């Protein structure tokens, strides 16, 4: 404790020694297995997808240090922290990169696509081992928090190049600018995802119920569109195998086949995310004390009752059951109302042989007289270890400006001038649904400030604690929520205390 000193040099030196030993012996190692590798892998640099794969076009070339094939500076782009790893997204990404690399000779983008369950582990490995990429993204607010210390402040580059986020509302520019620590700008505005109600129209029709309002202030069925209205509606849309709904006598909670409500993909069971449409608030007061905001306590009880007393929210076991498609609840067609973000249009379509159901958007209900629409945002960032900030920034601008990527990712543009084109591209995927995009636009006016993903000391531990809490009320009947909340507050206090010495 007393003899602390900073020793990055010695540390890196150690790695250097290891590397020198390794490379000194490198020649002997390659001679051990040359015939095998060399014969299988002649270097033909054809990375293009052949229709019938020729099985020898394999290039075991290391990540290039020199200029790329187009003569430009190589910029490494790491994909996987958010969207971008599905087969349907990889194609457009490759097309974008090829087009970009062919269109100019200054910058050559080289991409890495990493399965998102492992992406942050792999990125951390690359960073820690001194082999970090230049650009990361698309990445949400949460991802930025996890890598906050490594993000480059883009302000000097923005100033020197005169970059303008055209078409982006100043409030959103401010929002993106608020994501860095110590006033740094760590990402260019790319996409925003207000949240609202997704509803399954077929299930409303079956129940003979009107669909929820699409305009802020409109009533539902003659009554205010608030939390109670949502609860009652959700219970009517929760049905057992005999066709009885959750408001009826004789409803069988052990054999539910359709659920009224779910907050799927709000970072499953994370209390901080699941409670965000109840309001907004900080987890830490100005003196550093951990607080559970009132709206969050209210939400915890609402969800707990919703799962175990009113039965309109599925339990963890029901979520992973076959009926809810092992975790794709809304797409299973067995959930009537889902509270989700704009990007959720990626994932609503059920698979054959079920007919695609009709779905629609509705505004968030008021909670305690207020509307809150939790906001997600995607951006692209540059890591501060980059050796080529200018080239990386050039690539970054091109990525952020690409309409094709917005469509592939299902990312609602932060740039208002691009929004209509994006709405049209999503509408084209759902012919005949007539999605009401005004809902999304209206909800942008009710963001949660502070954001439910805003940074806190030791973000990842706080997130784990919030998920553990949510997991408990999804798996355990009869929890004493007040006691659990007190425990959560203690846990948070411990995390904050440890993180801020």
């Amino acid at each position, binding site marked *: 404790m007393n003899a602390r000193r900073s020793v*990055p040099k010695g*540390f890196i030196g150690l790695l250097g020694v290891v590397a020198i030993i390794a490379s000194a*012996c490198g020649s002997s190692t390659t001679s051990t297995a040359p015939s095998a590798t060399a014969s299988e892998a002649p270097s033909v640099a054809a990375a293009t997808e052949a229709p019938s794969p020729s099985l020898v076009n394999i290039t075991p070339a290391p990540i290039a240090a020199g200029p790329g094939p187009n003569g430009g500076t190589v910029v490494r782009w790491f994909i996987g922290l958010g969207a971008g790893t599905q087969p349907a997204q990889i194609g457009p990404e490759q097309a974008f990169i090829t087009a970009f690399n062919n269109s100019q000779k200054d910058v050559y983008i080289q991409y890495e696509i990493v399965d998102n369950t492992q992406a942050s582990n792999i990125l951390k490995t690359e960073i820690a081992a001194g082999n970090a990429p230049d650009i990361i993204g698309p990445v949400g607010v949460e991802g930025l928090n996890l890598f906050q210390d*490594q993000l480059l402040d883009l302000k000097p580059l923005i100033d020197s190049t005169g970059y303008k986020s055209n078409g982006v509302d100043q409030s959103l520019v401010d929002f993106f600018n608020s994501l860095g620590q110590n006033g740094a700008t760590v990402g260019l505005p790319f996409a925003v995802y207000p949240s609202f109600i997704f509803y399954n129209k077929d299930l409303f029709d079956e129940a003979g119920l009107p669909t929820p309002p699409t305009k802020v202030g409109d009533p539902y069925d003659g009554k205010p569109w608030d939390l109670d209205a949502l609860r009652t509606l959700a219970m009517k849309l929760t049905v057992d195998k005999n066709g009885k709904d959750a408001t009826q006598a004789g409803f069988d909670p052990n054999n539910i086949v359709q659920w009224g409500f779910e907050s799927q993909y709000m970072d499953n069971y994370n209390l901080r995310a699941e409670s965000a449409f109840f309001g907004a608030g900080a987890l830490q007061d100005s003196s550093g004390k951990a607080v559970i905001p009132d709206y969050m306590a209210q939400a915890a009880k609402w969800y707990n009752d919703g799962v175990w007393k009113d039965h309109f929210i599925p339990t963890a076991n029901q979520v992973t*059951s*076959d009926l809810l498609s*092992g975790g794709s609840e809304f797409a299973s067609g067995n959930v009537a109302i889902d509270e989700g973000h704009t990007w959720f249009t990626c994932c609503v379509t059920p698979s054959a042989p079920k007919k695609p159901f009709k779905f629609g958007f509705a505004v968030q209900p008021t909670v305690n007289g207020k509307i809150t629409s939790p906001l997600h945002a995607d951006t692209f960032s540059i890591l501060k270890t980059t050796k080529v900030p200018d080239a990386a920034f050039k690539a970054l601008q091109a990525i952020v400006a690409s309409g094709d990527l917005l469509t592939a990712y299902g990312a609602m543009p932060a740039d208002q001038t691009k929004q209509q084109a994006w709405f049209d591209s999503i509408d084209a995927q759902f012919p005949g649904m007539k999605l009401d995009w005004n809902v999304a636009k209206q909800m942008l006016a009710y963001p949660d400030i502070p954001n439910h993903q805003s940074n806190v000391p030791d973000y*990842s531990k706080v997130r784990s604690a919030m998920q*553990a809490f949510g*997991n408990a009320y999804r798996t355990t009947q009869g929890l004493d929520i007040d006691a659990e909340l007190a425990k959560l507050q203690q846990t948070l206090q411990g995390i904050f205390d440890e993180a801020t010495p």
Partner: protein
Amino acid sequence: MARTSRAVPAPIRRSREGRGQLGPSGREAVWGFVFVAPWIIGFLLFTIGPLIASLVFSLTDFDLVRPEAVRFVGLDNYARMVADPLVVQGLVVTARFAIIAIPVTMIASLGVALLVNSPRLFGRNLFRTLFYMPIQIPLVASTLVWIGFLNTETGWLNGLLGLAGIDGPDWLNSATWVYPALTLIGLWGIGNFMLINIAGLQSVPTELYEAARIDGAGPWSSFRRITIPMMSPILLYNLVISLITTFQYLTQAYVLTNGRGDPNNATLFINLDLFREAFVNNHMGYASAIGWLLFTIVLVMTLVLFFIARRRVYYAGGEA
């Protein structure tokens, strides 16, 4: 290295019967080094550096996303470990699991090996292939299979139990049932040990069994007096490897318990705690210290096993 070994004086070799043919001990030692040389070279090239590096990490506050701000903290990490309830929990959970899972796996894999090695069984090849198959399933798929199979709502297991009139437990969300569930999943992966046991069974000379039969020994007695002693080197291997892998148990626990050791840290295995410290909390320095604690514990246990094995394990070729 070969040169130094040649300098070793001859008397160092204790003479044993039937060992003279290789000539002077010096030449034997040279040959020994020649044969183990590939491993020594590989060890120096790829392994020793990272090993030492991780030991050095354990003396620092190395944070994965702040690699430029590493500081020596001496033995702080080790001191912190002693008071860390999660590390204690991790060791307890792992020990508890080891006590259940290792014997079950050892016995089950030997039992299945005996079964599918029996000449009286029709279609042995097919049985072996099928018993081996589960560990060939890619992890992402087998994980989903088990999550589905153990689901309380639509899973087959509780469905079958329900047919038998039994109300199946909440396998993955109950602190009590999660161990049997993980053991069950572990049983699915006995294929490798089964195969090793089959190989071991085949190394037992058949004439020994014939001799025993002539002496009037029954199947149980010849199993105890011939199979077990002749198999003992292989059983030792299985035991040591199970011990090592149990203390590194991670992937299944990670995937099936939301990556947090749910419910309520009941499945926070020591290696899961290590993984979380390293890659979730980014505390690679601290995680390395946990790694070296784990290393010390398992190494000591392994050495104890080897020590006990000196008297219990029979090597037909004599111990080298």
